[in-house]
């Protein structure tokens, strides 16, 4: 398969990911507005919102990174480093969210 096919595939996928992440962020804003009235389960929702925000950031970094790399290859290490940092932060908050969900489930 030629390189052009991968360029098109990555660009289309990145576009869809960016659209989905922007829409997800808008929904997350809606969820946090709905949560203003709730006083219980604060910690779980706080972790949930941080975790989803990090997940969205991860998607945007990956999508912008793959488009940016096509334009200028020198940007690749920067995006890879950003992706690694976001993944490590995602791990921390995913564990915290799982623990707070477990507390509620019990």
């Amino acid at each position, binding site marked *: 398969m030629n390189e052009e096919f991968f360029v098109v595939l990555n660009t289309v996928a990145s576009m869809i990911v960016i659209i989905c992440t922007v829409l997800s962020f808008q929904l997350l804003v809606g969820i946090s507005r709905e949560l203003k009235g709730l006083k219980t389960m604060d910690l779980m929702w706080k972790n949930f919102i941080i975790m989803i925000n990090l997940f969205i950031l991860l998607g945007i970094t990956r999508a912008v990174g793959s488009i940016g790399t096509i334009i200028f290859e020198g940007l690749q290490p920067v995006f890879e*480093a950003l992706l690694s940092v976001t993944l490590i932060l995602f791990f921390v908050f995913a564990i915290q969210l799982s623990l707070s969900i477990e507390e509620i489930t019990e």
Partner: protein
Amino acid sequence: MKKLAFLAGIPLLMIENVNALENINQIDMSGTMVQLIAYLLGICGAAYLAAGLWLRSEKGSQSWKYLSVSMILFVFWNIIGTFSILLDVLAVRKSTSGIIISDETLNTYIIIVKILDPVIAVIVFVILLFGLKKIIDAMRTKPWTVFSKDEEEEKSNE
């Protein structure tokens, strides 16, 4: 004092050797290791969260299941990312690593990884979007169903 000075110089010598090796193999090993560890941590975190969300969906709203599926696919995405890094390293160090693999096989693996990576990324974020939409809809219409099963739903299941 001279002995101590020699001991202090060992780490510097090691760094120099690593740098020399990196230049020979044309790959940044320290950066690659950080990336690999980040992907492995992502796999662990996402798998643990997927299990937690799945349990939550069995006791509460089904909308949590969408997020759980999204996290399971995210685990696969990270596994593919890890394979991609390993294949890149293998492609560069094939001659020195001693692993016998033909160029055709290696290229086939790289092509499969390159195709799967964007496809899974799209599926992950589309499912996440639907999951969040379901959760916000449940919060607006029947907020009590977010954390506990709906009575009508339970009756229909029975």
